[in-house]
């Protein structure tokens, strides 16, 4: 049953990026309606719609807007178009085919939050996309949708595109704010929250592209329609991405709550695996959220959900809540990448570890040193010189980084810890098979070559495993 394409309705339509095409299909009607309402009414409406952020954190947008101090003089709106989470491309598809939907959303959100200036922070790698967006912004200005006295409402809004330059951490809210201010993108400590003291010291709202693109539809189609889509806590429509060796990689729209199996196998979405292979693993929410076991594993006989057993987990529903039952960090960007049964899981581990080691900003100790250490361990395992204790070490290091909130300033180390830990835990058997197939003393030889003292120190005499007592994962297991 094909779901209605709401956000993606103009994808595939000829000349879809032009204002004329957008207006012909009813574009900017939502903005016109919004400008008739009072900003406070708009905020209430969005709160009722329970529009949760589509950028990865899932924070309700209306609640975020209501944190702005009522007596503020200046407000900024930052559009987070820094889509760097592998393998997400839904924002790109939206901006590539329908930039005006985003701009209408910016206008609505700007009006609701009484924004003076909106900055669209686009990552530097969106090279062609920048030109498309800039043309759209110019068209919008020419038609009077930005600038002064928009649609005669008396509301002024300036909209500028700010190009980033290649940093994943600038997708983090305060990292984006710092980057916008012309500094290195080091996330700030919170409090103070961006709603109170954000970019240039003023109240700021940071919203994702897709979140804003939902706004015109909530206004034109109405609250009841929006609330009819999705599951209990996750309302509305979502753009799902699927990539990897599936028959139809791409971006598809469906209400929240689609199951992973459907996303991969349904002919309307992924269309099944290429060459009929089975799925070894899938990262359903972008690599930061963690991994699910695929159908190379048997299904649970009683249908129960137990992440500690080697069962097929593809029945996971992709909304904000069900994913947690499968030991995932969250829904994330709902962008799935599928690992086929013939891929080496060690390559996947190295790729994921490398991403976070390269993109860590370097502020917090655990993230800076931990991601780099995990990458080095993953590389050594890939090179055929791993040890069984390395797998335990990886799990422990991730426990020090992400198991408990508050250990770091931003969420990157949590996003680094989850995939690495779930990969090692859920595919432990395969890792151990690879380790068993290594040359017998490959690890010892490589380690001795790198660090002679590692084995010669008398402190190691008689000990095969390094001590783990008193570590965070150990405490977590003991329930303390």
């Amino acid at each position: 049953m094909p779901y209605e394409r709401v956000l993606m309705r103009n994808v595939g339509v000829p000349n879809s990026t032009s204002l004329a095409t957008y207006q012909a299909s009813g574009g900017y009607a939502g903005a016109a309606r919004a400008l008739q309402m009072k900003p406070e009414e708009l905020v209430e409406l969005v709160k009722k719609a329970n529009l949760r952020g589509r950028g990865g954190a899932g924070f309700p947008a209306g609640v975020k807007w209501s944190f702005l101090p009522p007596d503020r003089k200046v407000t900024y709106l930052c559009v987070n178009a820094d889509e760097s989470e592998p393998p997400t491309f839904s924002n790109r598809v939206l901006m590539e085919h329908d930039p005006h939907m985003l701009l209408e959303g910016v206008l609505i959100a700007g009006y609701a939050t009484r924004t003076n200036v909106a900055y669209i922070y686009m990552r530097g790698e969106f090279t062609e996309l920048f030109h498309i967006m800039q043309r759209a912004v110019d068209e919008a200005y020419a038609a009077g949708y930005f600038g002064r006295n928009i649609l005669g409402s008396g509301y002024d809004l300036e909209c500028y595109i700010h190009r980033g330059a290649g940093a994943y951490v600038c997708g983090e809210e305060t990292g984006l704010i710092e980057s916008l201010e012309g500094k290195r993108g080091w996330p700030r400590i919170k409090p103070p929250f961006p709603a109170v003291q954000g970019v240039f010291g003023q109240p700021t709202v940071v919203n994702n592209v897709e979140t804003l693109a939902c706004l015109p539809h909530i206004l034109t189609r109405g609250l009841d329609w929006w609330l009819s889509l999705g599951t209990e806590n996750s309302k509305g429509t979502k753009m799902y991405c699927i990539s990897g060796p599936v028959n139809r990689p791409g971006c598809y729209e469906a209400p929240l709550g689609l199951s992973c199996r459907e996303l991969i196998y349904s002919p309307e979405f992924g269309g099944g695996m290429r060459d009929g292979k089975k799925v070894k693993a899938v990262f359903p929410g972008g690599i930061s959220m963690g991994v699910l076991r695929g159908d190379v594993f048997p299904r649970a006989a009683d249908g129960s959900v137990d992440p500690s057993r080697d069962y097929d987990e593809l029945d996971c529903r992709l909304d904000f809540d069900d994913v947690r039952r499968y030991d995932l960090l969250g829904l994330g960007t709902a962008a799935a990448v599928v690992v086929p049964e013939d891929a080496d899981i060690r390559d996947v581990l190295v790729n994921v570890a490398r991403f976070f080691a390269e993109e860590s900003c370097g502020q917090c100790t655990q993230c800076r040193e931990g991601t780099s250490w995990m990458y080095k361990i993953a590389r050594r395992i890939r090179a055929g010189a791993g040890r069984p204790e390395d797998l335990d070490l990886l799990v422990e290091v991730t426990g020090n980084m992400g198991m408990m909130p508050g250990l770091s300033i931003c969420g990157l180390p949590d996003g680094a810890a989850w995939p690495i830990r779930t990969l090692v835990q859920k595919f432990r058997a395969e890792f151990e098979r690879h380790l068993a197939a290594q040359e017998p003393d490959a690890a010892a030889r490589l380690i001795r070559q790198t660090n002679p003292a590692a084995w010669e120190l008398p402190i190691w005499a008689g000990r095969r495993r390094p001590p783990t007592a008193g570590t965070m994962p150990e405490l977590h297991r003991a329930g303390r």
Partner: protein
Amino acid sequence: MPKIIIDGREVECRAGISVLQAALEAGWDIPHYCYHPGLSVVASCRLCLMEMKMPHPQTGEVGWAPKLFPACQTPVKDGMEVRFDSPRVRASQAATLEYYLLNHPLDCPVCDKAGECCLQDYSERFGRPTSRMVEEKHKNPKKDIGPHTLLYQDRCVLCTRCVRFCDEIAGTGELRVVNRGSRAEIDVFPGLPLANELQGNVVDLCPVGALLSKDFLFRQRVWFLRSVRSVSPADSSGATIWIDCNSQGVHRVRPRFNPRVNQWWLSDEARFGWKYILRDDRLNEPRLRRGGVWEPIRWDELPEVLRYRFGRIATSDHGAGTAAVLSPMMSCEEAWLLARFVRGLAPQATLVRGYVPVRGTDKTFGTGFVIRAEKCPNRRGIERIIAHSGGNTLEFDEFIAAAGEGRFKAVYLVGGYPEEWIAKEHHKALAGVELLVVHDLFGSLLDELATVRIPAASFAEREGCFMNCDGLVQPFEQAIEPLEGVRSDGQFFYELVGGLPGADGLFRAAAVRAAMAAELPEFAEPYVPPDLPPHAH
């Protein structure tokens, strides 16, 4: 004063500070790198994490929250309960310290900071006993970032204290973080080295041995040093310092925390400008011109000789032709004693406020640190003593003019300046003085005119007190024994005056201050700044 509970003990603390600062002040040992009370809070080192009791978001029941909070970022609130001594906190500390050591070169045997290194201390107290790092370490280079400072980047823990210091306190922003992630380093823009006038403070701030002072590099192991409380004579601000010394002499000068004067900072001028006390050409024996012969004289003979000679000249005119030039490098006690000696023999003697060296104008940095233009520590103290003594007084220029006119027959001239201060016109003006006693650190043009030349002791070799430009009286202690052949000025003036009634023959600054306080109440209770909490750094 809010009351909070730390580790089950109630602590009363100041309002408006962070929990970390409150815990440190109450004596707790909490590991921290990036936090410094004088700099902005970044909460990036993640070592000071604590557990806090909070109401449950749904039930409202107060219990230990299942997350850790950075203590440096959390302000104290009356009634809050936190703990640092819990398994979770200890596990987090141990893990974080393990991370710091992953890429650390572990060159304690050749690192200057050993003995006062926070990484050593915290690893020992909070860290893991073994390392599990068997990968290749990432090696950062060593850099020469300024005329006085080296940066051994491989030891750096990226606490960014130095970066924030240069930005906020010095206002110049030379140091920055470059690169990203585990490749991040501290660096300066090539060609714009770390050269502001406060840059020596980054070496103190650095908790590990990454930033090093070229002056102190490989000089001395810190456990062979003892620290003495002193006051810097470099300028009139009265910055309090620690003199790190041992039997071999002074090795290093560091700032001593002083909430009313220099907080935690010290100008480079004060930090490195004490080397003049080590010069080869320091005077080291008293000399007397007797019968045309310039011969040495013993210290114990000097007081008699001076009393006799000054007394003889003063009898004729009650001392109208006698003058004592009190240098603003002298301590208040010494000035007071010398003034008593001279006025005792010659009631009409003129007291002169000595030469005040001034260079440039007062310079204010960043958040308010000031380097004063007046390069002497005790002008106000001297002025106070002179004002209190009353009678004939003169400024130094007036004195030189008057001496040139031949008004003075006996002059006791005290110097003690780090640089040459006697010019040709001084020499010319004082040429006619019959009895010229020069009490100075180094020789000068006056050597051929002086009747008596007495070697002075440097500030590190004396004890006393200085009054700073704002009138604050601060005591300083003796760090090292005076140079061989030199006697401390205080001791000498004490003997000149004949000691104090009821006291023995040794000069003790505190006793002299107590005697001064009878007439000059400012000296009753000199200001001694509080020490930093034991585990703050």
